[in-house]
């Protein structure tokens, strides 16, 4: 009995190695961010720098306003984006899962097409700037990520497989309207899939920088990831043109190594803090769903 229950040492070893592989780069970035710049230049990256210095964080503190603002933008966009996206996605998936919904075939094909063929960058850009006019607003960061075809399909499959149609029937016999059925019966039953898709969406909103690049001119609306990405891209771009004989007048200034790493640490922050909490609900959601389903 007891031998069966004990975890195999090999699994522990593999999992430990895997955790190390996750933790080591994180540790390295942290150490470089608090290492003395001169040491980094001389000896390269190391896991335990000879000299510590918090210059990078002090430097970023000067820019605190910009970074905090970007933080705010990112958090707002992620929270609003996830909630609205979950609502829209689940609503669409639920309609498509209902056998008595006449357009379900057509809608499925429509969604499949968006997954197989993308319209391309230019039409995408034109729709949001010419048709919806959302450039330079927070909506430009939220709307493009609202519905993913893949997420809808996953949810539809979940609804079709784990919610018996008779449940809906009985709810409606008891006098529940469509909305009532959806909000007080379907959604609570679907916590596992909502948690899963919610996690996907959270990560994609939090990590998104390209939408900011394309639509946002106003510095006040830059998301955190774009701010970070922009600094790195500018540095590498300037380096790549440094050899081109454009002019000796241009001076190339690089962000310092430790500042780059400090920025990375700052950007990781909330997700690292939020994830344990999210995970708690994630696991709970799964059990709740399992028991009731």
């Amino acid at each position: 009995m007891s031998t069966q229950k004990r975890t195999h040492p090999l699994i522990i070893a593999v999992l430990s190695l895997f955790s190390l592989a996750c933790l080591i780069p994180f540790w390295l970035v942290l150490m470089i961010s608090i290492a003395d710049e001169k040491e980094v230049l001389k000896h390269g990256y190391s896991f335990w720098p000879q000299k510590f210095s918090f210059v990078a964080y002090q430097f970023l503190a000067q820019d605190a306003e910009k970074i905090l603002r970007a933080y705010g933008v990112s958090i707002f966009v992620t929270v609003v984006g996830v909630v609205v996206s979950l609502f829209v996605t689940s609503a669409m998936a639920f309609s498509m899962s209902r056998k008595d919904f006449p357009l379900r075939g057509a809608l499925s094909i429509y969604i499949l097409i968006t997954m197989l063929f993308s319209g391309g960058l230019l039409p995408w850009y034109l729709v949001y700037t010419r048709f919806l006019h959302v450039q330079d607003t927070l909506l430009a960061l939220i709307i493009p990520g609202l519905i993913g075809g893949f997420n809808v399909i996953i949810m539809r499959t979940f609804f079709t497989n784990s919610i018996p149609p008779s449940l809906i029937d009985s709810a409606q016999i008891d006098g529940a309207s469509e909305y009532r059925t959806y909000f007080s019966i379907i959604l609570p039953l679907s916590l596992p899939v909502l948690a899963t898709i919610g996690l996907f969406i959270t990560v994609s909103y939090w990590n998104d920088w390209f939408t900011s690049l394309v639509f946002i001119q106003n510095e006040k609306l830059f998301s955190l990831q774009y701010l970070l990405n922009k600094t790195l891209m500018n540095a590498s771009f300037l380096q790549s043109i440094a050899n081109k004989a454009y002019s000796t007048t241009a001076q190339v200034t690089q962000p310092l190594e430790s500042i780059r790493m400090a920025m990375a640490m700052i950007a990781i922050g909330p997700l690292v803090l939020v994830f344990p909490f999210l995970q708690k609900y994630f696991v709970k959601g799964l059990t709740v769903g399992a028991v009731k389903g």
Partner: protein
Amino acid sequence: MKWLKKGSVILSSLMLTVAMTATGCSSSNNGSNNSPQASSGGDSAAGGLKPYEVVMVFPDAPQKDNELVQNAMNDYLKKTYPDMNVTVKLNPIDWGAWSDKTNLMMASGDKFDLLFTADWLGFQQQVTKGALLPLDDLLAKYGPDIEAVEKNYHDPAKRGGKLYGIHTHQELGGAQGVYLDKALVDKYKFDLSGFKSGNVEALEPMLKTIKENEPGITPLVMPSFPLDAYYSSGTLDQIGNLAAINVKGTAADDFTVINMYNTPRFLELAKMTNKWYKAGYTNKDALTPGLDAWKKIQAGQAFALVGDMDILANMEIGSVSKSPNGSLKAGRDMLQIPLNVDRLQTGKMTATMQAISKTSKDPERAMMLLNLFFKDKNLLTLFNFGIEGTHYVLKDGQVALPDGKTNNDVGYYHDNMWQIGNQMLNYTRVGEDPNKYKNYEKFNEMITKNPSRIFGFVFDPEPVKNEMITIDNANKAFVDGIKSGQLDPEENLPKLLEKQKAAGADKVIAEAQKQLDAWRAANGK
């Protein structure tokens, strides 16, 4: 039920927030949408010009006080040139986002007027796509001050006989050579007269001394193309990615197109680099992407560097002088010794240009404004340095930061002098040589006396496009390794040449020769 209550409260409050932001955003959006419409008038008619806003698109990190400077420029324009009736809108785009954004703007037909462009930023593609306007007539009519300084240098920016870009008036070339750490030169009393020959080989004994006596210091630090600038500019008139004319040791009327990897000098330099690499004179991480050689010098880890020199008054080959910019970058005294001074090259003239977008509603006015940047020092200074007293102060005729300000918190600080207008009108910054632009003038005189054999000739790669791509792929396997000294050229250079041949190098060279001969016939060279 509990879930429903909680959920619905959260949901409805969030929906409300979204709705509020949506309305808030759309109203501000409308506001910003109206202004350009209102200000973009029709074509300039004979009787009085309608107000027009010229949108300037250029690469730059966003400046906090962008709008402040823009307003100051507009006030100035209104006061000084009332009949022009023009305002500007500064639209800087981050370096990192530059190609994505400009491509989208061009493809979607966004309205903008002046655009910074260069051969290394896709000038050729922009012309091919038809995103730029031909400028010849506009220039003749509205660009007298541009013509005054750039008249002889328009040919390189012509495509199909039409001009598409206006070169920034600045230094017309560069010089390449070696930088040395002055402290170490003094310590070992190095004899620098060997550089008078213009050959980088004179560096070798010094590298040896440093290697033997200074542990922890890389004698010669280099990025992946250590001697490339020096080799190609000093030995070749380059045409395409491998076609070139060898000017070292050939007659002045020799227009034979050759493969640039197939000259005696290339083999010589490659062998030398390989020898230095093996002897440990150079850094092993030369091919690491993103490596910054200056940082190594700054950290006191390197002695010498081969690269582009600061332009000084007397740029004689082999002359030793303190490098102002180099010393600034290294944080210590650096000497510079030029080994080659450029000839007047076609490529340099297309490295910094202003163009007018096809989507401009009033190209005439854009050209008028561009012309001002070649004539009006005040306007140029506003654009380059910001507002006097707020973003800079003048100290002995040089630009300095106001007291207590750093370039991070001053609100408007960038290095865009090389992007537009007549550089010779500019102030210098404190720390720079006050005679910088006089030096440029002198340097330009020297360079213009020595034009490249094929100055003005532009190679059209279209007929051999596929070959060029295959050659690029063949190069990837060898070129970086050979140039950084990590591959033995005796063994690998023949392999490279063979691969290039298989990829169609001969066809590229023949095509280049054909186009060059046609150009010579047409221009009577």
